[in-house]
């Protein structure tokens, strides 16, 4: 299968006046055609920044310092090397994006129609009538009950769920190859969440669109995705199929995440949470394994950064426990931080 998006060795830096801090490091990811790929992580893990980097919409203080983002459009192009003008042609047309906050993601002063059609006006040369018709059709597709009326209304007249449907319609109207959804359901009622996810799934299948779903919620991943990358403190720590992740989680961080979900569903048990706090980018540099300080399996070697180790097939984990050469009896593998 051919890849739609291939990110290799991506690093994102934050440059202050005095010093440069690395925020996202050695990020690798490959999304194939029609694949639904999830990135899961706590807030501050760098998952949203990665998505903004793909769109080349990083805030000014952040920049891509290394790596490539290759996109398969008509030909293979590296998004990090495009001029602003070329990048604009990709945004909205080849890659579309849905954001977390449907309440603020639409311009309050324009009608839904204007904002829906705006994408078409930017990327196609259709007539007004054609664009308007397509807008109406898209609104029908995303399950809005009175599409013609909605077309003429303003964002503040719609509910959060409706707005997110509009956002989906807007994202898919140009039939993009990739849809990036950054926490698309986080701000919505639980009852609406599943509907929106289903809708995204169905429509992307219909349009042959791959999905990159970014979320902190493993439940959303389980419901939607084929493959998943777990991010912690700016790095991918485990990458595998969704099935593998839930049946055979390998990285201690992933295990901790799953544990905390399980404890949520089980009234008999105390709520489990991973001890300690997420490190900030300001002290990434001195750390070996960034999870070591919170890890129940921490060893002395964890002061050195582990590589991505292959466990089986394409299941990878960034943990010394999975290094082939590890001999757990060796002195440097002594456990130091056991709980």
């Amino acid at each position: 299968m051919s890849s739609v998006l291939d990110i290799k060795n991506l690093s994102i830096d934050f440059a202050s006046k005095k010093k440069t801090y690395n925020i996202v490091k050695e990020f690798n990811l490959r999304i194939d055609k029609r694949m639904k790929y999830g990135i899961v992580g706590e807030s501050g893990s760098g998952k949203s920044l990665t998505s903004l980097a793909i769109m080349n919409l990083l805030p000014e203080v952040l920049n891509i310092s290394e790596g490539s983002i290759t996109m398969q459009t008509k030909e293979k192009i590296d998004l990090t090397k495009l001029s602003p003008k070329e990048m604009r042609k990709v945004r909205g047309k080849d890659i579309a994006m849905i954001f977390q906050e449907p309440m603020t993601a639409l311009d309050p002063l324009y009608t839904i129609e204007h904002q829906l059609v705006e994408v078409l006006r930017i990327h196609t040369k259709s007539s007004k009538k054609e664009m308007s018709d397509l807008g109406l059709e898209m609104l029908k597709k995303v399950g809005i009950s009175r599409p013609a009326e909605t077309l003429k209304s303003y964002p503040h007249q719609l509910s959060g769920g409706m707005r997110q449907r509009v956002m989906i319609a807007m994202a898919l109207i140009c039939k993009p190859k990739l849809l990036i959804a950054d926490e698309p359901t986080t701000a919505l009622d639980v009852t609406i969440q599943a509907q929106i996810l289903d809708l995204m799934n169905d429509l992307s299948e219909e349009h042959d669109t791959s999905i990159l779903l970014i979320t902190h919620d493993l439940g959303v991943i389980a419901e939607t995705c084929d493959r998943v990358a777990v991010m912690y403190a700016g790095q991918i720590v485990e990458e595998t199929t969704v099935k593998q992740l839930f049946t055979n989680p390998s990285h201690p961080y992933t295990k901790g995440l799953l544990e905390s979900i399980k404890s949520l569903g089980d009234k008999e048990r105390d709520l489990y949470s991973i001890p300690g706090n997420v490190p900030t980018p300001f002290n990434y540099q001195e750390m070996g394994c960034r999870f070591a300080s919170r890890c129940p399996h921490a060893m002395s070697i964890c002061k050195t950064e582990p590589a991505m180790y292959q466990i089986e097939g394409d299941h990878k984990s960034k943990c010394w426990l999975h290094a082939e050469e590890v001999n757990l009896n060796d002195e440097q593998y002594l456990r130091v931080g056991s709980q």
Partner: protein
Amino acid sequence: MLIPVLFGVSIVIFIALRVIPGDVAATILGTDATPETLAQLRKNFGLDLPIYEQYLQWIGGVLTGDFGESMRTGKEVLPDILDRFAITFELTILAAIISWIIAIPMGILAGIKRNSKTDFSVRVISLLGVSVPNFALATVLILVLSLSFSYSPPVGYVGFWEDPIRNLQILFLPALVMGTSMAGAVMRMTRSSILEILRQDFIRTIRAKGAKEKIVIFDHALKNAMIPILTIIGLQVGVLLGGTVIIEQIFSLPGLGQLVLTGINQRDFTVVQGAVLFIAFVFVLINLLVDLLYSYLDPRITYK
């Protein structure tokens, strides 16, 4: 809303003028007037009536478009107010336009290019604009012009319809002074609103659509920023209307501000109360207009 406020204004100004020590009769007749002649003159002006009766008489007239007659010249007040308002209004409009031409593009530029050299210079200019009082600017400007071009403020006023070119020549300098004074505040407001809007989520959405910066800035950021900018413009027009009092004095323009000032000095009650009420009316009207513009611009606001 509008009407009670204006009634309030009329009551306040009317009572205030009646409290002023010394009245028109005394000022007209001078110090050697006998009590009898004073009383006679007061009676002519209706000043011997209880204050509420005086007020009712006056406001009754105002409601039918009769603002009474000047106590000094005997001329009808309203036509005089309207004549002079034409000057003040033209001055205000010219000043407002000048300030917008300067301030809005510069404010936008500074907002887009935050922390650049342009931004820095715009911030310095606007701060100076806010800090230099218009009368100081006018005085210094006249001084500089007179020293380097032996300029002196034109004597005598010519109406726009009589000789538009001469009229604009006369009004250009005062309008420029008022416009630049006002530009500072508008510039700052424009800059900070643009900055605020550019931080919003929907701007990111529009960029994610692949829109050119031109669309992002003009179609979306500017339109959203117009709402706070309008607020400051509405307020500034009030400041301008008040500011003309000083500028008209410096440039010897026979506008509404000068009418009020001489009216106060001469204790010409009918003129002052009429002119002040009129200015308040225009001020309130402009703010109403701004409110209407809001609801036109912003679908979330409906004007009640």
